[in-house]
C-alpha cells in the first residue's frame, strides 16, 4: 500500500495535459433560439460523447453498484464517496466494453460526497479531461453519463442532456435526470471536460445534484493519499476499536501468540491464517500477550491494513490483511 501511494504521488498530478476546446457560443445565450443554436448543442455533444463515454465506468461493490469516471491513463477514477464507501476498500471497476479491473478506494471528502479510486491492475486506460479553469457558468449546457441501474452491456452507459440550473460552492444542480446507479458518474460540459460527479437526487425530476470538480481539485492531494477528509453525511468514518479480525490466540512461552481458532468467513480466514500459526509481529510491534495484541487492534479501525509476521511449522511468513467490520 505504501509503495502504491508513493507511485501515485509521483505519477499523477491533476495539472497535466492542457485541454482547450472552444466554449460554444450557445452557452452565453439565455436560450437557444433557432435550428442553428440547437444543432450547435447537438454537434458539440455528439462529438464529445465518444471520449467521455469511454472514460465512464461502473463501480461494483459487494452491496450494489455506482458509476465513476477515469481521469488518468493509469487508472485514477473519480466517484462519489457514498459509492466508494470509505478508504482502502476493494472494488471492481467495469469499463464500457465490459472489461473488469480490480481497484482500491483512496480518499473521500465525507461532507461533499467526493471520492477517488485507483485501478490496481496495470493497463493504459481511456480518460476524460478535467475542466481546470473553473469555466463553468450558470445555464451552461451539460451532459451526464452513468450506468443507471447497474452495468448493461446491451445498453451501455446512458447519456442525458440538461443545463446547470443552480450553483453553490459545494453543489451543482442540473436538469440531467439521474437515477440509482448513476451515483459517482460524470457531468461534462459541451467541450467534453469533466465538471462534476453525480451525487444525489431530490424527489422531483429537476433536483439532480453533482459535486463540483473544484471540490476534487481542492482536496486532490489528500484524496491521492487515501485520507478521510471531513465528517459525514455521505460516508461514515470507521471507528477505532470496531475493527474485526476473527481469531483467538494464546501466548507462547518462547514469545509470540499461537492461533487457537480462526472464525469462519472472517478477515483472518480470508488472509489464510491457520490454527497453529504463531504470530510474532503486528505492523512491526512484537507480540507478547493477548491483552497487548487486543490493545493494538483496539487502536485500529475497519479497513486498516495489518502486516503480520508469523511462523508456520517453524517457517517464517508474512500475512497481510485488512480489518473487517465488527
Amino acid at each position, binding site marked *: 500500500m505504501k509503495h502504491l501511494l508513493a507511485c501515485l504521488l509521483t505519477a499523477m498530478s491533476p495539472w497535466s495535459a492542457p485541454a482547450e476546446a472552444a466554449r460554444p457560443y450557445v452557452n452565453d445565450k439565455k436560450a437557444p433560439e433557432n435550428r442553428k443554436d*440547437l444543432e450547435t448543442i447537438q454537434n458539440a455533444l455528439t462529438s464529445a*460523447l465518444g471520449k467521455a463515454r469511454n472514460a465512464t465506468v461502473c463501480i461494483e461493490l459487494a452491496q450494489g453498484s455506482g458509476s465513476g469516471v477515469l481521469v488518468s491513463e493509469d487508472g485514477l477514477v473519480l466517484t462519489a464517496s457514498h459509492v466508494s464507501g470509505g478508504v482502502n476498500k476493494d472494488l471492481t471497476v467495469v469499463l464500457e466494453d465490459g472489461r473488469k479491473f480490480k481497484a482500491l478506494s483512496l480518499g473521500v471528502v465525507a461532507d461533499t460526497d467526493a471520492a477517488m479510486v485507483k485501478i490496481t491492475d496495470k493497463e493504459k486506460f481511456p480518460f476524460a479531461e478535467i475542466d481546470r479553469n473553473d469555466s463553468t457558468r450558470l445555464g451552461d449546457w451539460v451532459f451526464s453519463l452513468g450506468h443507471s441501474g447497474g452495468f448493461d452491456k446491451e445498453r451501455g452507459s446512458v*447519456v442525458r442532456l440538461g443545463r446547470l440550473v443552480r450553483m453553490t460552492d459545494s453543489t451543482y444542480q442540473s436538469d440531467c435526470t439521474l437515477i440509482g446507479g448513476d451515483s459517482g458518474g460524470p457531468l461534462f460540459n459541451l467541450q467534453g471536460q469533466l465538471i462534476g460527479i453525480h451525487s444525489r*437526487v431530490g424527489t422531483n*425530476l429537476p433536483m439532480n445534484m453533482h459535486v463540483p470538480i473544484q471540490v476534487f481539485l481542492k482536496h486532490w492531494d489528500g484524496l491521492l493519499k487515501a485520507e478521510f477528509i471531513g465528517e459525514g453525511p455521505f460516508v461514515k468514518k470507521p471507528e477505532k476499536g470496531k475493527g474485526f479480525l476473527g481469531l483467538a490466540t494464546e501466548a507462547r512461552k518462547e514469545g509470540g501468540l499461537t492461533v487457537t481458532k480462526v472464525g469462519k468467513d472472517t478477515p483472518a480466514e480470508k488472509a489464510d491464517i491457520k490454527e497453529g500459526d504463531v504470530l510474532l509481529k503486528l505492523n512491526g510491534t512484537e507480540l507478547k500477550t493477548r491483552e497487548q495484541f487486543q490493545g493494538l487492534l483496539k487502536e485500529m479501525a475497519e479497513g486498516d491494513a495489518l502486516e503480520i509476521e508469523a511462523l508456520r511449522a517453524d517457517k517464517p511468513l508474512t500475512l497481510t490483511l485488512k480489518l473487517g467490520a465488527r
Partner: protein
Amino acid sequence: MHAKLLLPALVLALTARSFGDQNLETAYRSTGATVLAAFEPQRQVIQKSSAVIYDGRSEAIYGVVISPDGDILTKASELQDIKKLSVAVDDKKYPEVTLLGTDPRWDVAHLKIDASGLTPVTYAPTSAVPQGTWVVANGASTRTQRRVLAGIISAKIREISTAGGGALGVILKPNAKELEIAEVQDKSGAKEAGLQKGDVILALDGKKVAKLEELAAILKDRKAGSTAKLTYRRKNEETTVEVRLIARNEMTDDMNRNDAMSGEYSERRSGFPRILQHDILGAKSIVGGPLLDLDGRCIGMNIARADRAESYAIPVEDLKAIAEHMLKK
C-alpha cells in the same frame, strides 16, 4: 438484490449555502418555455400529427396519426383504464372512436376516428441516429394547443426483454437466518397466493432452500408467467402453494427503490422487441405519441415511460411495419 447507489433527497438542506448561490430561472431550464420555443417547427408537426386520447375531459395519452382518414396508433395497455374514450387531433375533437385491433407484442392499439384530410406523420428514413441527437415529443396540451418537450437519444437501440427470470414478489428480511418474508409486494403472485409477512420460505418446486442464493438460482431459470410450488412455514405449520412468477425487471426490490424516486411510469415497460431510449421525461401520459427529429420527421413512437430517467420509443422501422400491417387488416 443489488442496491443501486443514489441517495434520495435526505441531504439537500445541508448543501444549500447562501454564499454564491445562483439559480437559473425556470423559463430557461431544459423544460422551460423559452428553451422549448426554439422547437416551434417541430411543435407545429405535433399539433397536426399527434392525437390526444381523452378519458372524459382529462387527457390520458397521445397517439400517432398514420393516415389522412383517421387511423391512429396508441399504447394499448393504457387504453384499458379509459372509461369515456374520445380523441382530439389539432383543434378538433372526435367523440366516436373505434378500436380496430391491437398488437400485444408491441403494446400498440389501432384506433379509428371519422375524419378526413388529417396530416399523418412523415417517417424518418432511419432510427439509427447518433446518441445525443435531439428528439421532440408531445408534452402537455390544452384543448386546442399542443406543447412539446425536447430531449436526446440516450442509449443504444436494444430489446427490452421480460426475461431475466421470474420473481415471487416478496422482499426478504435482510441478514435473517431463514428466508423470512419482510414484505409481500402488491400485484404479485405471492400476494395472490396468500403469502404474508413473517412466513418463512422452505422449498421451491420441492427443492429445499435455506439461502437467498439458492432461491435466486432456481428462479433465474424460470420464466415470468409460469408458476412455482412454494412451501412455507407459518406458526410451525407447513403449507405448499402455487405462486405465479412475475417479470423480475418489473418486480425486484432494487427497481422498487428506483421506482420510488420515479414518479409515474408506464405499467407495461418491458417486453419490447426493440426500443429507442431517450431522456424526454414528461408525465406518464407522454406515451403513445410520435417522437420527432429536428426535421419534424417521425423517428419513433413513445411506448413507455420506463422510470424517473428513461423513456422508450418504438423505432421508426418497426413502427412503419406495425402501421402497414394494421392498415391492411
